């Protein structure tokens, strides 16, 4: 190249320079362009366009900024950029379902999004700025968005106490407890009760080896593939407690052998008075009379029976105790008598009350049970098992422990098997990589895992010992929700402070009252100060509500106050002393501060006030829509026929002013009565009196027998 041409660019080089600089410029331009096209920026812009199409544009765009929006709550570990795209989340005018996502407002909930963030409840990756990263499971983030169906699980993460707004979660927790899941698994917030399944120390005195074999092979309550529950072949709503285990023929025989020799304490048969037996055994009325007593004592409040009406068989009765349709073919008659006389002697923690029996009643009822509540085919398919051999018993003992039976059933001398299954108290916070999916072809996430495991335990782990349940979709989702809510202890102290603990106030009275209270197991159905069952009215303030004499009369002869109730208080054949002890304690202790008897003197009620009250009741407020007086009126509230004899005026006044202040979840709406109206209505209700009379001759005879029996 000549020297003069050095330093001079040829046309060709220029061209190369020009092209490459344009290319560089172009490549550089891609970066801002890509930035401009980022997902969240597109959502930002489309929100602005959307807001401009709404009538309240100005309000919607008041705090609009084109950059990333973030909720930062350092104490709770929350860095949530969700509001970058979900921009209308707090705009009340965007709550309409016609508003497209992601701009629709959040439904009104008690927690403000600015104070809580989003991922605390919805999970997902808060700092992410891309739709898929924020919502889905990625390699770096294994907590995807929780499907809305299970969102109540998040309420349960902090609210250990049950909330009225989360029925699905409450149902799930209830199912976990009722199905005795806590027998094998550690569950957050669900304690192991004193007794899960029945104690089997003396099971050999109660049932035969054949019956145990049948029970293990085919438990009474069966959930079929379509999630229909049947008890002894009849459809029911009851939850199965004893699940079906996968047992081989040898295992069945061995377990039945082992259990049938469990008879630590020999049964001491009770001799029913020979005169009673002589008087009744030949009487054709024996069985019908036994059935009548069985009904009058309201055994059906806790136990159900299969009843055939018009060709259709239905289970009728409660589900606190076991179903009894075929119990006569199950239990040893001597055991039955001993059990009915003193259930607590056989099972100290049973919920069955100890009734006061006369020999006559006991004979009639047990004869009814052993002759009528039977099924000759119950053990038809069971092979002859004969005497248990030592070898079978040994094997049965081993299997009893291997299968985890001792998790729920205790036998004297055996250590209870706590934590037999995996600890589930932090399952809800687990990452998918911590779970064993086995060969199961399901999406690898926590929700699918829980549901697959619940539906078929063997599908994710061939060696699973968990028995097979068949759930319906609702129950499956409820249990999944409850399990998802168990995330273990909150990770940060700020979240720890937010936990609303479950209120556990076991009501443990002492003294004479406690003895009677334990004998009749009042807490099985009634609630006392937040503790107990919810089948019957809450008795926390019963002393303020009811007159003492009425309580005594009711305990001696329970009447139904609510006409539609099928389940009623059983007749305990209570002695006068027991009734007086209960009534005295209730009137002394179960008092509500708002219903102060000293402020009201029943003498101040004049007939004129009562007449006005009657008018208000019948015409202005039409209380008969829900309450019955003298046979007419509605079925929703209690019958007021004997309101004057039953209720105290102080309670009625306080109730009329604000029912929810006395019983928070009562359905009676709070009204806007004036003081005069309250007094007039109270005056009227106090005039309503009706002595408790037996309704028919049959029950008259029965109540005579009852008093007679209790006196013995």
């Amino acid at each position, binding site marked *: 190249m000549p020297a003069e041409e050095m330093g001079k660019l040829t046309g060709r080089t220029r061209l190369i320079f020009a092209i490459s600089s344009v290319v560089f410029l*172009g490549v550089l331009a891609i970066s801002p362009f890509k930035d401009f096209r980022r997902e969240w920026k597109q959502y930002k812009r489309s929100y602005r366009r959307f807001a401009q199409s709404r009538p309240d544009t100005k309000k919607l765009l008041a705090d609009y900024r084109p950059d990333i929006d973030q909720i930062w709550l350092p104490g709770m570990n929350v860095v949530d950029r969700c509001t970058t795209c979900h921009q209308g989340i707090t705009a009340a005018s965007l709550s309409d379902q016609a508003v497209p996502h992601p701009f629709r407002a959040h439904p009104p909930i008690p927690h403000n999004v600015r104070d809580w963030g989003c991922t605390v409840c919805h999970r997902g990756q808060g700092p992410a700025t891309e739709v898929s990263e924020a919502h889905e499971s990625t390699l770096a983030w294994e907590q995807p968005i929780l499907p809305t169906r299970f969102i109540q699980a998040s309420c349960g993460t902090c609210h250990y106490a049950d909330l009225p707004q989360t029925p699905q979660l409450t149902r799930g927790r209830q199912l976990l407890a009722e199905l005795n899941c806590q027998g094998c698994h550690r569950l957050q917030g669900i304690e192991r009760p004193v007794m899960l399944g029945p104690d089997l120390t003396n099971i050999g005195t109660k049932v035969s080896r054949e019956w145990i074999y049948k029970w293990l092979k085919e438990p009474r309550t069966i959930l079929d593939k379509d999630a229909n529950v049947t008890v002894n072949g009849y459809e029911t709503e009851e939850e199965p407690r004893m699940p079906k285990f996968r047992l081989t023929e040898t295992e069945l025989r061995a377990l039945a052998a082992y259990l049938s020799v469990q008879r630590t304490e020999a049964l001491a048969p009770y001799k029913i008075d020979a005169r009673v037996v002589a008087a009744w055994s030949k009487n054709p009325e024996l069985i019908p009379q036994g059935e009548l007593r069985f009904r009058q004592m309201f055994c059906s409040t806790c136990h159900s029976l299969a009843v055939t009406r018009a060709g259709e068989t239905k289970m009728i009765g409660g589900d606190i105790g076991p179903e009894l349709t075929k119990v006569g073919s199950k239990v040893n008659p001597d055991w039955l008598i001993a059990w009915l006389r003193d259930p607590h002697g056989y099972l100290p923690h049973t919920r069955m009350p100890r009734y006061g029996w006369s020999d006559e009643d006991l004979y009639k009822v047990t004869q009814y049970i052993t002759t009528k509540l039977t099924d000759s085919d119950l053990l038809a398919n069971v092979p002859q098992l004969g005497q248990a051999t030592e070898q079978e018993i040994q094997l049965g003992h081993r299997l009893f422990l291997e299968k985890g039976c001792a998790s729920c059933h205790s036998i004297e001398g055996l250590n209870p098997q706590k934590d037999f299954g995996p600890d589930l108290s932090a399952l809800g916070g687990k990452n998918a990589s911590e779970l064993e999916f086995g060969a199961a072809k399901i999406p690898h996430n926590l929700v699918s895992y829980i549901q697959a495991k619940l539906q078929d335990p063997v599908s994710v782990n061939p060696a699973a010992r968990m028995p097979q349940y068949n759930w319906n979709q609702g129950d499956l989702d409820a249990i999944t929700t409850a399990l998802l809510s168990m995330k273990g202890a909150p990770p940060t102290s700020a979240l720890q402070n937010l936990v609303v603990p479950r209120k556990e106030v076991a009501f443990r009275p002492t003294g004479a009252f406690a003895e009677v209270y334990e004998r009749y197991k009042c807490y099985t159905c009634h609630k006392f100060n937040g503790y107990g069952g919810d089948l019957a009215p809450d008795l926390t303030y019963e002393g303020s509500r009811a007159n003492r004499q009425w309580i005594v009369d009711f305990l001696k002869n329970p009447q139904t106050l609510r006409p539609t109730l099928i389940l009623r208080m059983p007749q305990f054949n209570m002695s006068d002393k027991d009734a007086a002890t209960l009534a005295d304690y209730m009137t002394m202790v179960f008092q509500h501060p708002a219903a102060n008897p000293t402020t009201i003197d029943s003498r101040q009620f004049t007939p004129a006030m009562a007449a006005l009250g009657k008018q208000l009741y019948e015409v202005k407020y039409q209380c008969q829509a829900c309450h019955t007086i003298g046979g007419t009126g*509605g079925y929703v509230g209690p019958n007021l026929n004997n309101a004057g004899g039953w209720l105290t005026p102080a309670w009625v006044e306080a109730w009329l002013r604000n029912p929810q202040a006395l019983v928070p979840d009562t359905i009676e709406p709070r009204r806007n009565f004036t003081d005069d109206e309250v007094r007039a209505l109270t005056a009227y209700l106090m005039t309503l009196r009706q002595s408790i009379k037996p309704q028919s001759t049959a029950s008259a005879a029965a109540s005579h027998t009852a008093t007679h029996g209790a006196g013995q």
Partner: protein
Amino acid sequence: MRLRIWISALLLLTLAGFPGCRKHAEVAKSDPLLAAYDTEADWTDAQRIIPLSYQQAQGKRIFYQQCVWCHADATPAGPSNRSNLTPVPPLLNDGAALNAESDEFMQNIVTLGGSAMGKSPMMPPYGKTLSAEEVHSVIAFARAIAQPQYQPPARAGSQYSAK
């Protein structure tokens, strides 16, 4: 010169292709039942499951606690009180009777009671028992289960919708 034009045209074309490279947001699979907060079986056709939003589900809860006793034919505790009452209260899903009523009317009759709105005094006022929000949610639930289906009035700012 021609070469330059060609090259710049080529560059422009390349650039124009870039937007095509961005990831398309996946179209969400929309099964209304899976996305629903809760569901309710149609009262007239048990096979049909109606998806409920959060608000409607809250309404369902309050309905089964407070209203079911008179506004349904079966209750959790057995037979309904409905047949005892004259005039017979409408079923909550009775679209023929309730679809024509405005949201304001529905809200008032629940809050203030039947007598305040010229209807049966047997309907008690719930204004002191339920919050305004709870009343809204019950109405939203009624709209969701209405048979025939509820069509919101065609005007802006309607608060509750059936869908």
